């Protein structure tokens, strides 16, 4: 059994300052957040430079890593001892291995591109200092998450990205819907965080430590029951962060945030942290097949759910959010397949980062040109007015539906193969999901860029400024070549990750080429159906009633309704009844005691009549009592 930590090298040379990767955006965040309004003018550029510097350093580290042999690529960078309580010691350190290197490049690279885009997108906002500060904070926290070498430090980054997500979703504070959405995201994440906490606590109980170097080598000796429990807890955490079933309700509402936020956090990076967690904890999942099965099932359900929801949304960002949910379902499905699928999950994660960020930025460009209109029923025929956006969006579209040779084809194809290798049903579900993905993405393309104009009267669609189109070109290019590049350059991603994730290969019933042909056929069918419905007939500007499936999909498959009925209402009743008990019971007891004493003293008060003679009476009575007492003492 392969253990990740076998070949960790000490940090030397270029790697000694790995912590700079995190420090640069963190300094950027601190400066921008503490500097306040004064820095608003330089904030956009300053905020973009910091992650870009991180990216530059990451490229240097990557080059150095590539230069080493496959067994010497993992680097450990210890920083300082945090605390030691009882038998539990935690020291802060970084682990830069192949897996985290891939993530670092994705986060800093795509992140810097999105920062550049934001300079243009948020140009008219008057709180840009805050915005870029929060974005930098997010980048720093996400880097800490993927570079940590201890689950507790990972949790610090985990919470950090949750915080940044909350701050950024609710960035436009004046909008009540944004504040509510931010709260919902945070609460749903919290449920996941509870799972994460339980996982960390279980690790402490079973292994006595939460450091990777302590947990993974010792995983083989732990009981399977505990390993399954830890695996399930980690899965719960991952569900919260990656918006998987049953914690998926917050992702669509999170689209209230500015589009760069949706692109960076809720498409490319934060929502993939769950997948990272599961792949990182491969040692544990390898030894707990039951937990793996749970991961696969969650992934399958979510990929179908996200796809169905995405088909019925008229809001372009929500449609893309449903798509994100579905694609992450693919990644979870692959991650749950064990060593056969870990590398493909990461591969798909990287390509998804490219094309999904591309799609979101493209959507933002469309919105920017259409006065922030998000209803696709008010778009139409934009390809002539916004050609650059159209071309780059098309690149992302072809990537996501898996048309060769675009990026998504390679990653998704591999995942579907691996799913079929595991079990026929998983493969079938993934295949159907691919078909639905093609359907709804084609719908988005047709409603937005093709057909007739359905614009509002005051819409003047125009192309976006270069500061926004350059990132679109970059990401569009990556959507085109990224798959091929990752698969075949320098040994390919699977070999790159192999020391970390292991590799397995399941034999398929049919040859791989035949499966690929079937996949392409299903995708083509999806495109055709969408063309028939949305391409040939004009799109109505108001949403038609639709079948009950459509209605269900519009309501997020009743996810919110179920949450409310199962969790919120009982919680409210419980709170209300407790408040009632407290008011009547506890307050009543306390107040009642006070009132009783008050009443008692009001009665007793009447003894104080003010008349000397009544006092004299009590004195006489008292004297008689004293005499009696004295006699009682002496008489016997």
């Amino acid at each position, binding site marked *: 059994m392969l253990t990740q930590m076998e070949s960790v090298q000490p940090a030397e040379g270029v790697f000694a300052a790995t912590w700079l990767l995190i420090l640069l955006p963190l300094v950027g965040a601190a400066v921008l957040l503490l500097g306040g309004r004064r820095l608003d003018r330089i904030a956009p550029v300053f905020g973009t430079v910091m992650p870009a510097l991180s990216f530059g350093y990451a490229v240097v580290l990557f080059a150095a890593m590539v230069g080493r042999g496959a067994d010497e690529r993992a680097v450990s960078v210890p920083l300082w001892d945090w605390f030691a309580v009882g038998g539990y010691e935690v020291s802060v350190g970084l682990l830069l291995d192949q897996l985290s290197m891939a993530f670092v490049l994705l986060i800093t690279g795509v992140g810097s591109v999105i920062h550049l885009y934001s300079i243009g997108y948020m140009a008219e906002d008057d709180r840009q200092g805050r915005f870029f500060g929060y974005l930098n904070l997010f980048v720093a926290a996400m880097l800490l998450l993927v570079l940590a070498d201890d689950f507790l430090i990972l949790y610090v980054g985990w919470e950090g990205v949750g915080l940044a997500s909350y701050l950024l979703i609710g960035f436009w504070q004046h909008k009540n819907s944004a504040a509510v959405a931010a709260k919902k995201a945070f609460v749903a994440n919290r449920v996941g965080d509870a799972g994460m906490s339980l996982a960390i606590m279980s690790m402490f109980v079973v292994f006595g430590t939460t450091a990777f170097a302590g947990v993974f080598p010792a995983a083989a000796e732990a009981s399977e029951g505990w390993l399954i429990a830890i695996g399930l807890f980690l899965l719960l955490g991952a569900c919260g962060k990656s918006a998987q079933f049953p914690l998926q309700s917050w992702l669509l509402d999170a689209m209230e945030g500015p589009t760069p936020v949706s692109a960076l956090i809720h498409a490319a990076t934060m929502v993939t942290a769950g997948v990272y967690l599961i792949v990182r904890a491969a040692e544990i999942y390898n030894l707990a097949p039951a937990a793996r099965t749970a991961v696969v099932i969650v992934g399958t359900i979510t990929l179908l759910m996200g796809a169905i929801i995405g088909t019925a949304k008229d809001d372009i960002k929500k449609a893309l959010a449903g798509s994100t949910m579905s694609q992450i379902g693919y990644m979870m499905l692959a991650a749950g397949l064990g060593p056969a699928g870990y590398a493909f999950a990461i591969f798909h994660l990287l390509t998804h980062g490219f094309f999904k960020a591309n799609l979101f930025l493209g959507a933002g460009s469309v919105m920017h040109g259409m006065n922030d209109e998000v209803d696709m029923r008010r778009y139409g025929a934009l390809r002539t007015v916004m050609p650059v956006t159209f071309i780059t969006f098309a690149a992302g579209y072809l990537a996501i539906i898996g048309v060769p040779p675009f990026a998504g084809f390679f990653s998704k194809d591999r995942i579907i193969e691996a799913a079929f290798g595991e079990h026929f049903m998983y493969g079938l579900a993934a295949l159907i999901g691919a078909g639905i993905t093609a359907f709804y993405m084609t719908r988005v393309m047709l409603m937005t860029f093709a057909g007739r104009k359905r614009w509002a009267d005051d819409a003047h669609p125009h192309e976006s400024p270069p500061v926004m189109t350059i990132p679109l070109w970059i990401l569009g290019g990556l959507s085109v070549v990224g798959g091929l590049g990752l698969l075949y350059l320098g040994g390919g991603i699977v070999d790159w990750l192999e020391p970390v994730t292991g590799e397995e290969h399941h034999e398929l019933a049919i040859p791989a080429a035949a499966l690929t042909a079937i996949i392409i056929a299903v995708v083509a069918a999806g495109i055709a159906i969408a063309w028939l419905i949305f391409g040939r007939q004009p799109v109505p500007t108001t949403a038609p009633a639709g079948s009950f499936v459509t209605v269900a999909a519009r309501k997020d498959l009743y996810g919110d309704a179920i949450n409310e009925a199962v969790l919120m209402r009982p919680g409210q009743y419980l709170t209300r009844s407790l408040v009632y008990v407290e008011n009547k019971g506890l307050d009543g007891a306390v107040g009642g005691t006070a009132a009783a004493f008050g009443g008692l003293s009001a009665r007793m008060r009447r003894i104080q009549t003010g008349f000397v003679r*009544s006092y004299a009476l009590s004195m*006489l009575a008292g004297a008689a009592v004293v005499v009696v007492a004295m006699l009682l003492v002496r008489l016997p």
Partner: protein
Amino acid sequence: MIADVLAQAVESTGGGTGEAVLFWILAPVSVLSALGLVISRRAVNGALFLALVMISLAVFFIALEAPFLGVVQIVVYTGAIMMLFLFVIMLVGVDASDSRVETIRGQRVAAILAGLGLGVLLVAVVSRAVFSDWVGLAGAAPEGSVPAIADAIFSRYVWAFEIVAATLITAALGAMVLTHQERLTRRPGQRELAEQRFASGSGVAASQLPSPGVYARHNAVDTPALLPDGTTSDESVPTSLVARGAVRPSDEFTKHEPGELEGDQQ
């Protein structure tokens, strides 16, 4: 002298029948007088009852071989203290009397019960207790009670004696301080008094009041004098008599012509 005689009389009988007779006559008297004090409506009557109790107690003291104390009881207690009481009663108003109605609810019943209870308790205890018979003060006071008391006061109890003396002086001073009324306005002089008198308007005040007996037709205290216009002068009769309604009407004197009354000579 008398005290010594009495004491010797008591000793000669050895505390026997003479003392018993004395006791059984005076004890009911004192108890009834005490009840009278508590029950009497007028303060004056109560004071007199108390004086009676004190005198009977003085007699008891003498019978109990404490002649000095008996005399002091009469001189100090009955003589000085009761006189003080009577003076104050005079100041407050001789005829001021309480109504019988009790204002505090349940006070009377509770008081009688408490007093009864206390009394019964003490009497029961005392009667159950076994007392040794009289030892008598022949041993402690061989030369009579006065030298013995003097000896004790000025040797063993001299400290208490000095303090009590200081207390007495302080009490006297305190009484003077309490009742002293500071004159807040200037004493009106003769001119001011005369102006006040004339300012009141009636001609009566213009001159001095007639000396007693000027308008008197009779030399009895309760007969009012007649003013020049024939009306009676209320100022010629003591106010207490007026309050009591014991003033004799002067009709019988005004109706007659001079010379018609018996014993009235031209």
